[in-house]
């Protein structure tokens, strides 16, 4: 039988199953195959905070969405074209996101009376008419896998567990994915358990052959490689890019990296990644708590290291006092906040942009601090280098605001040329700087206002710093009112004077009257929405902030040159509040705080409404 091959320009697939079904691994592998094939792609993992919620229940559903295309794309997609549902819970939890006509590949073996009852289905939706607006492929994935693995000396349980590889094989056939790398991956992952390795490869191949030879699927799909800029690419998640960026910052600054960290979702992967790279001279310290994590990083910075701490919102709250100490002692420090839904514990695995005001103002006293935010997973690399540049040049703590969406999402990354990375090397102070041969630890550089960084071990520059107010220049303890006023202003002036690139505006027609401004991880959905609006004839400009403190020098001018400024944020309008206060511009704030990224379609509608209201 010759099967029909249909050309598509893009597809959104969502793999969904129980937390124990291996959906994240399946999604990761399909992503790797897709990256190797050369499509542009974007991913959105979505999983519960519970490691194993009760099997088969709605809270236990874990999913992985992948958008891939023959052209450059910006988001993981709004609504899946294909849902792979490994059980009734996975179907029920994701059905409302499926547009009419989408494909559902359901593991019919799991649609048992007991599993259906767990999620409140009276009848199997695979057998009644309730799914008639979708194309349902009911496939007994579990029993087909078990049957394919009959010849292997493995338990029934192990055979059943390979069903995700069967599904991966089937989807790989359906979309013409290259399979060699996946087979190699399985072999190396289970290198110590050869039976498991062989059976998983067999399950994967069986899934492929099932698509190829049975009549269950009559059409397969081709999505041509995307025409991206020439270069060498790899797929990368935000957390991995951030870790690599920190390593690059260490190399480019010539300073050893010291990470003080405490495990917290969704930031822990940065600790894990950096812990693997000790041969770069990286010291990773898993502290007893968040406070000790940042304290150790600051202690290391005092000793001349590139001090870094990585955490999420609750951790930033705990670290605030130490960050304030870094502000007043004017030591370089990088604080990475991978934001998650709050307040308090909130929703640890869900994304949000709600820590902006905490990053800017969440400390006692006048405590100015630079804040930067990456816009895409791969931008996490560049922003880490930028955070280090600012911290080292200006001797200041810097807060880097990533979030759960960037952290776990992935995209193809065109690898930078090492020679193009900025030189952020540091000259430690080694000579006295006072007129009378003394060392003045708070005598500032006239251009940057940075103070000298003299590290222990440097003869003749012994000095003391601390949290108590310092006399200008000498750094001696001072309670003099005028000195305090001066120091408060100097610390602010130093941050205000940081060299930040101008805000760039994308306005191809040059005649847009509406500007859409964003910051952080909303870049993809906003840019995708703007494409839609422009395709349908709308004129709209886009600008995206990577520097939240200080703002680019031209931001006021940009804001004032449009009739309307729309600012979508995954918070209740934190940046909008700031911009209104600082620039007296009546920002139109659009806010959703659902723990999920914006959808492009939703934003396109909002943008169109603003244009239409002109």
């Amino acid at each position, binding site marked *: 039988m010759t099967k029909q091959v249909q050309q598509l320009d893009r597809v959104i697939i969502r793999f969904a199953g129980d937390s124990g079904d291996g959906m994240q691994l399946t999604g990761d592998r399909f992503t790797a195959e897709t990256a190797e094939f050369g499509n542009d792609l974007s991913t959105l993992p979505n999983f519960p905070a519970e490691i194993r919620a009760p099997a088969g229940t709605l809270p236990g559903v874990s999913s992985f969405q992948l958008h891939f295309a023959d052209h450059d794309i910006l988001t993981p997609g709004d609504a899946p074209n294909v849902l792979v549902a490994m059980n009734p819970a996975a179907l029920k939890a994701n059905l409302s996101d499926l547009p009419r006509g989408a494909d559902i590949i359901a593991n019919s073996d799991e649609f048992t009376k007991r599993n259906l009852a767990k999620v409140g289905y009276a009848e199997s939706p695979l057998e009644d008419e309730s799914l008639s607006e979708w194309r349902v492929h009911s496939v007994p994935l579990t029993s087909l896998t078990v049957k394919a693995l009959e010849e292997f000396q493995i338990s029934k349980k192990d055979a059943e567990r390979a069903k995700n590889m069967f599904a991966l094989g089937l989807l790989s056939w359906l979309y013409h994915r290259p399979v060699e790398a996946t087979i190699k991956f399985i072999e190396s992952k289970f290198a110590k358990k050869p039976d498991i390795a062989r059976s998983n490869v067999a399950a994967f191949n069986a899934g492929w052959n099932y698509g190829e030879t049975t009549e269950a699927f009559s059409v397969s799909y081709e999505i041509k490689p995307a025409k991206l800029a020439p270069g060498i690419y790899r797929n990368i998640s935000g957390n991995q890019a951030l870790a690599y960026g920190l390593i690059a910052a260490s190399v480019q600054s010539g300073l050893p990296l010291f990470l003080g960290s405490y495990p917290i979702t969704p930031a822990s992967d940065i600790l894990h990644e950096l812990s693997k790279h000790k041969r770069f001279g990286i010291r990773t310290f898993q502290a007893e708590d968040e406070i000790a994590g940042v*304290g150790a990083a600051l202690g290391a910075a005092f000793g001349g290291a590139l001090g870094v701490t990585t955490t999420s919102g609750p951790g930033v709250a705990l670290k605030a006092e130490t960050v304030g100490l870094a502000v007043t002692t004017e030591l370089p420090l990088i604080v990475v906040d991978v934001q998650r839904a709050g307040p308090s514990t909130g929703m640890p695995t869900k994304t949000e942009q709600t820590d902006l005001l905490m990053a800017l103002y969440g400390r006692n006293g006048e405590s100015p601090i630079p804040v930067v935010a990456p816009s895409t997973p791969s931008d996490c690399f560049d922003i880490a280098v930028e955070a280090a540049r600012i911290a080292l040049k200006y001797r200041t703590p810097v807060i880097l605001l990533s979030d759960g969406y960037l952290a776990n999402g992935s995209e193809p990354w065109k690898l930078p040329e090492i020679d193009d990375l900025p030189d952020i090397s540091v000259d430690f102070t080694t000579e006295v700087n006072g007129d009378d041969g003394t060392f003045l630890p708070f005598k500032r550089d006239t251009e940057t206002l940075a103070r000298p960084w003299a590290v222990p071990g440097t003869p003749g520059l012994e000095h*003391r710093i601390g949290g108590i107010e310092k006399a200008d220049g000498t750094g001696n303890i001072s309670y003099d009112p005028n000195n305090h006023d001066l120091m408060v202003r100097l610390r602010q002036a130093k941050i205000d004077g940081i060299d930040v690139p101008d805000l760039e505006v994308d306005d191809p027609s040059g005649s847009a009257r509406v500007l859409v401004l964003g910051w952080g991880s909303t870049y993809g959905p906003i840019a995708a929405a703007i494409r839609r609006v422009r395709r349908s004839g709308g004129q709209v400009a886009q600008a995206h902030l990577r520097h939240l403190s200080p703002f680019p020098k031209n931001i006021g001018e940009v804001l004032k040159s449009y009739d309307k400024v729309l600012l979508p944020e995954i918070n209740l309008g934190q940046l909008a509040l700031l911009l209104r206060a600082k620039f007296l511009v009546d920002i139109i704030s659009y806010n959703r705080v659902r723990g999920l990224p914006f959808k492009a379609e939703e934003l396109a509608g909002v943008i169109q409404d603003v244009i239409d209201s002109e």
Partner: protein
Amino acid sequence: MSELSVNGHQNGRGLALVPRAEGKQTLKDFKSDQEVRWCPGCGDYAILAAVQSFMPELGIKRENTVFVSGIGCSSRFPYYMNTYGFHSIHGRAPAIATGLAASRPDLSVWVITGDGDALSIGGNHLIHALRRNVNLNILLFNNRIYGLTKGQYSPTSEVGKITKSTPMGSLDRPFNPISLAIGAEAGFVARTLDSDRKHLQSVLREAAAHRGTSLVEIYQNCNIFNDGAFEMMKDPATRDAITVKLEHGQPIVFADQAVRLAPTGGVEVVPRASLREEEILVHDAHHPDPSLAFALSRLDEPAFAHVPIGIFRSVDRPSYDELMSNQLEAATAQKGRGSLTDLLHGGDTWRIS
């Protein structure tokens, strides 16, 4: 073994990686130009003078010496030392010093803390520093009161302490810092007294020579809010009867008393004349099992019945910073120094031309 070592198997490696000073240093070299601002009569003066006059004998470069403190009266200490210094946050000095010492094995790092700083707000960092065994010397100035906040009871104040915050007497039992440290299996635990410079310096000498975290509790008199807290140990009429000097390898005897193993477990004080020589407990600071050192720390129950001073425990085990450096070296030896290009190009890559 370093010349600093005085006992038989003290590890003596505490300063092994710290560069030696070229010329001879004096007390004056270690005095900063800052005016000392403790209350007149404060026990801190005696400790400062003892430390300043002791530092030159370590023979290490002054610029490789760092004093890190938290918050409290004692934590002003770094400002008065002409070394590198960091006056940090209440309770957090052990954490900050840990990052410094773990990344700079060529430094001699001293933590100055008080009973409130180390045992109340910073209790968590203290116990973790002790178990982790980074190369730090922690000097805990214990005056059994909050001084800088003007006289509230502290985590080492006796039960029933009348203070501004406890007008009817405090309710919570005090920590015994020595018991706490030994409970955390600290490698080096000692106690000394602000007014006994010779003893204080001898303990500091051993603490500096010890590689790993050393905790030295220094009884320190706050003459404003808790004057005379340790008077029993200073008054010639009482001191000999309650002070138990611990010396490694020596029988534990004082005045006409001696310490022996108690039949119920633990140790007890009995009249010396009632014991045969071999029944007297011989102090073994190097015993790997901390039980006996812990039992000795309980001799001051009920409060100040007998107060052991000296080194309770001095046990050699690898320090965290050494182990951390070893891992870095092993990783590099295995696969070579990291290359950024190789790192970025690792994993699955593809070329688009």
